[in-house]
Structures are given as C-alpha cells and as structure tokens.
C-alpha cells in the first residue's frame, strides 16, 4: 500500500548537535496520527521537515507519492500560534495561500470554511478582535483553504485553555469526518493523542528516533472516559518512560 506521508532515514543536524537520528515513519491515507515525545526532542523539527519548511537534512520525505523539496499547497500547516496577519481581515487571512485569481472571488469558499469552524459572518473582523480560540479556528480554516491532502499540526491547541482545546479537538474530528484528510499532529498531551489519533508515534529524547508505535484502534466517536483509553494511556506512559520514575523519587523522599 502507498502512504500519504513517508519519511525514510531522516537525519537532521544543527551545527554539531544531532536532532534526529535515522527517523522513519509512515502515515496512511486518511489516518490521524500523533507524534509524541519528550520536550525538545525534535518533534516540531520533524514536522517542519515533512512540510518542506526545514531543509538541509539527510533522508527522503515523500508526500502523496511526491518527494518534498519545499513547501507546497498540497500540504497544510498549522502552527502553535494562529499567526494571522494582523493587517488582514479574517476573509483575507483565509484566502492568503490561494493563487491570485481564486483570492479575488473566494467569498463562497471563505463562507463555507468559516461555517465549518463555527465562525459564520466573521469575514470582516480583524485578528485583534478575536479570542485565542477563535484565531486558531481561523488559522485552521486558512490551512484548509488550499484543499491540502495532508494537514500537519504543530501543537495546535497547546496555547488555549482546556475547554477550548476540547472543542477544537471536536472541530478537527468533524472536519476529518467530512474530508478524510490525512493528519499528523505533534502534541505533548497524552489524552489529546489518544482521543484523536489512529496511531501514536513515540519519539525518544535527543538524538530522536522512533521508539514505538501505538495502535489506538478504537471506534469513533470516542469517550474520553473510556477505560480502554486509560489502558492505552498507561502503555503510552510506559513508552515515554514517564511511569518509570519510582514513586519515592517523585515525592522527593530522603533515601
């Protein structure tokens, strides 16, 4: 079978430090996959390499059968922050990535996208008038505007409060239900990874390699309280070695 995203033997070095050591992963078409690992391990770097933002790496990245040599409209990217252009209205921000001709008569497309992210009628608003969650939803609409086949998300909900995060996760799932877009999401939130994804890729600390792939294998819609999710959470924590710290050390007891 062919993969939507395929990275083989990717190595990335900054100056002398090796960030990624022989990373290989493959995401299936229409799959939601999460990338999880210790902070600073190079998850975001890997995602940026997949998007074509980061170059100068060894190894091969193929998206939809085409080798990635730079950013393309076929790959949507969502940052940790909304990164809306403050001088453009919501409408103009959403059509930012479209070719000139489509930018000019994009109002139907914008209306459809805004409805999908529950921001109907906000076309004329400016970014400074939006809350963090609203701005991130506009950023999602912008990433989808070019109709990418793959969406890469770099800790997209880490800067919003817990309730907003849950509603954004629902939003992403609803969009996935409709479009079946392939998604790879970097996160440090175990619950987010287990709630959203089909598979979770676990990365080690620097230099990072892929240490484990966890199949979540649960039907959607999922229940956040499902004991099956809790069971996989333990498995995931083991993979991340979070649980390997002995309780006495965690409490700071004298030895």
């Amino acid at each position: 079978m062919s993969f939507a995203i395929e990275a083989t033997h990717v190595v990335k070095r900054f100056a002398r430090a090796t960030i990624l050591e022989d990373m290989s992963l493959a995401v299936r078409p229409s799959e939601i996959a999460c990338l999880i690992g210790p902070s600073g391990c190079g998850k975001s770097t890997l995602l940026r390499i997949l998007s074509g933002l980061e170059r100068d790496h060894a190894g091969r990245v193929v998206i939809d059968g085409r080798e990635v040599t730079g950013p393309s409209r076929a790959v949507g990217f969502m940052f940790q922050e909304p990164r809306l252009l403050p001088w453009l209205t919501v409408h103009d921000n959403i059509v930012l990535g479209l070719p000139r001709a489509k930018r000019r008569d994009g109002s139907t497309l914008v209306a459809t996208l805004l409805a999908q992210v529950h921001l109907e009628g906000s076309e004329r608003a400016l970014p400074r008038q939006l809350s963090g969650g609203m701005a991130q939803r506009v950023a999602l609409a912008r990433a989808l505007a070019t109709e990418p086949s793959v969406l890469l998300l770099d800790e997209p909900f880490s800067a919003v409060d817990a309730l907003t995060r849950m509603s954004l996760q629902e939003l992403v799932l609803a969009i996935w239900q409709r479009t079946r877009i392939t998604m790879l999401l970097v996160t440090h939130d175990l619950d987010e990874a287990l709630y959203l994804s089909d598979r979770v890729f676990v990365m080690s600390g620097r230099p990072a390699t892929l240490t484990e792939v966890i199949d979540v294998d649960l039907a959607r819609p999922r229940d956040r309280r499902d004991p099956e999710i809790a069971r996989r959470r333990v498995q995931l924590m083991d993979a991340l070695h979070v649980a390997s710290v002995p309780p006495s050390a965690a409490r700071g007891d004298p030895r």
Partner: protein
Amino acid sequence: MVKDPITARPQRGASSWLALLLPLVLLLTWQVTTSVTRVFLPHQLPSPWQVVTTAWELAQDGELSRHVVASLGRILAGFVIGAGAAILVGTLVGLSQAVEIMVDPTLQLVRNVPSLAWVPFLLLWLGIGEAPKITLIAIGAFFPVYLNLLTGIRQTDRKLIEVGYVFGMGRVDLVWRIILLSAFPYLLTGLRIGIGQSWLFLVAAELIASTRGLGFLLIDGQNTARPNIMLVGILVLAGFGKLSDAVLRCIERRVLHWTDGFEGRERR
C-alpha cells in the same frame, strides 16, 4: 459577536478641547505681556493682534500667498523625491544584508551633515535656482523615512514570514504581501518625521539666494528689523507643518486601524 473594525474604537472628538487649552493659555499670556503689562516692547515682541494685522496686510496684497505657494511647491517636490528615494533605498537595504553593508555606513555618515553645511555646496553644484532648494529638502526628508522603514522591515516577525513560506510564496510575494505591510507603521512614522524635517530644511533652503518663500519672509523680516513679519512667517510655517502632519496622521489612522497597541487612553 464581532465589532466593525472601523467604528470599534471610541471617538476622539469629545476630548479635543483639551488640545486647545495650552495654545489658548500661551496666547493669552502673550497678549497680556505685550499690550497690558508691557514686559516686551513692540520692537522686541509685537502683540498677537499686531501680528494678525500684519498677516492680514500681507495677505491682502497677495504677498503672503506668493510666499506660501513658493514654499509649498518646494516642500512637495522635495518631500516626494526624498521620501520616494528613501522608500526605494530603505527597501533594498532592508531586504539584503549585503546591500546594507555596502550602503548603510556611508548613509549614516552623510546623515550627520548639518542642513546649513549643505547650502554652500548645493549652490556651487546646482546653481541658484529651485534645484538646490528642492535637493536640500529632499535630503531632509530622506533620512527619517529611510531609518524608520529599515527598522520596520527588520522588525518583521519571522513567524509571519514563515506563514508565507508555508503557502509557497516567492520572494516578491513575501516582500509585497508580508514584509512591507508589516513595516507600514514604521514607514508612516518615518513619513511624519520626514515631512517635519522638510519644513525645517525649507528655511535653510530658502537662505539660498531666494526672493520668495516663508523662509525668505523670515530672513527679510530679520534683515529689515520687523519682528511682526518674522512672527507671521514663523506662525504660518508652524501652521503648515502641523497641517501636513495632520494629513499624514489621518492617513495613518485610516490605514493602520488594524494595529493593536497601547493607545494611552485611560481605563474606564
């Protein structure tokens, strides 16, 4: 849910009388010290009323408008040339470190030449017509615009440029649609300082063998010991300086309604 971007901000009109307070106090003090207590004699400082009368007389015989037209023409030409050149050079320098290394140190050296020091050389190089005057004003307008635009371009958020990269924008698109727009607030500040500098340099420019212009009016008043004429010149210069700044501020407010900074307004 979402407020209209143009009308969302509170109106300023209500507090505009505050802006008139200080000028009115100054005017009153001036009138009292010259015509009531006579701290200043008319040949030292004529009263506001005398100045108004002089201005009226100058306006009546068309003298004043002759000077104003001459000066406005020079300002307009000099500012457009100077600011235009600054936008061009500032953009080139801002976008390329190589160009910056080549050009910027020299410009910083030239920037510190005082306006009056240019006068004899411009006379030697360009003669005594309009050319040296307009050139001097252009020099005055150039540097504030150049410096501010350069700063603005270099302040562009790398994260926003990355958004452009993600959408596969080329260099031209990045410059036009992200970098220059992001630098726009700085550019407008530069233009406002630049137009102010233009008026300052105008007076120096009209030292150059001129027979018309507000700067000439000042020098003429000085040479013929008529402080009332000098004051008319000063006030008209100040008025037009303020007016040109107000025009740019108006443009600034319209164009930059997207900014989200501290506005100095008290909390309610």
